[in-house]
């Protein structure tokens, strides 16, 4: 997948786990949690959805890479290049 496709995957996951949020103005450089109501359980939902969709296992020590959209896409790009 391309970075743009990965970004859309993340947007789709966010839309599912935070259905009341308006994601149209999401700032890719800002932490997700500063822009929407996301708690630790929601964050785990992102990890879980990626696991279900692409069988990708994200270790806990890598969670810090999923703070912003930009960092998430950067982290996932090499891991989903063949997806």
């Amino acid at each position, binding site marked *: 997948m391309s970075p743009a496709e990965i970004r859309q995957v993340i947007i789709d996951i966010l839309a599912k786990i*935070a259905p009341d949020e308006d994601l149209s103005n999401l700032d890719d450089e800002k932490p997700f949690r500063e822009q929407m109501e996301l708690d630790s359980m929601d964050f785990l*939902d992102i990890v*879980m959805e990626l696991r279900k969709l692409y069988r990708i296992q994200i270790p806990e020590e890598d969670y810090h890479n999923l703070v912003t959209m930009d960092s998430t896409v950067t982290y996932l790009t090499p891991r989903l290049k063949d997806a």
Partner: protein
Amino acid sequence: MADGNSYTERIVITGVGLTSPNGNSLSEFRQNLLSGKSGVVPYQTRYMGDVLAGVCNFDTLKYQKRKDLRRGTRVGSVSVYCANEAIIDAGLDWPNVEKDRVGVYLGITEHGNVETENEVYEISQFDYDTSVWTHHHNPRTVANNAAGEVTINLGITGPHLTIGAACAAGNAGFIQAAQMLRLREVDIAIAGGVSESIHTFGIFASFQSQGALARHEDPTKASRPFDKDRNGIVVAEGGGICTVERLDDALARGAKIYGEIIGYAMNSDAKDFVLPDSNRQEQCIRLALKRAGVTPDDIDIVSSHATATEQGDIEESRALRNVFGDCENVAINNTKSFIGHAMGAAGALELLGNIPSFEDNTVHATINLDNIDPECALDQLVVNHPLKKPNIQYILNNSFGMLGINSVVIVKKYTE
């Protein structure tokens, strides 16, 4: 009357919130009970396909966001809806209520099956890889989930309990409320019973294996308590929740009073996992009457528990015949004939649907009673059409459940 109520402090119902398969408010529910409108519909359940069920259609987004619904459970959603409706109906100045003096006591038949079944199905799609088992499973399946979701939604910081009491649970919620109010553990109780049972295939499959799942070509005629042609239970979901207060507090704030909880009892058969026992049911009824300080002759309406299983209906009929056999005053009805068996919500909905009788002096009927089982013959049954009855003062509500749990609540029209 017998020799007076045995309680020192009077407990009253001051607000009602409910969702049933045939109504999402007390007025709508009552209207449909009087007009004979069933809430049983065709329903699809996992693995089994077509079954019948009592399905609620309340507005889930009235008091919760979509994210709340996703995070929580169906029974949490039912509970939050009913609790909010009850608080509004009670006219409480909610922002200024001391939230640590509010308790939530919700009866429930079973909990956790829905989420567990969903997750087992989900991991089956991933070759049973448990790493995709949701982290939401534990908070959704803890036994206090329903009441806990109410506290989170309403900012209630007092105690909360979900009371597991099989199908006696609705009454058990009211009883717990009365006890906690009398102990002054709380000043306001949010109490009743709730059910999400139609969302687990297991309850349908288990009743079917037991030979106790109702089938009928016309869903509205499937739930047939006391009828010779009955063939089992229609599973339903729903919730009935009240605000319950001490009378003095209710009067001090000028609250509307729906009725006074004047007596109750719970006991156990200590006998069988599923089969009921009329002897213990009779004891439970008589104990509630004694505590209420009334006699069988005083009771105007008996809201029966009968579920349309052969043995269950016969046993309750025997108990009612023993207690009320020669009472001409009493009228006996049954709400499950309209909505099916709402499990943990059943006792609450069945009581609440009768409460308006204090105002309209009408007893709603037992519908689908076309060919009464001789073993269930009770002269006082209100058959298929409502009964006008002057000066209704006392309602006795039966709720019984598996493992031999019996509960009875008696509510009186409020008088000074």
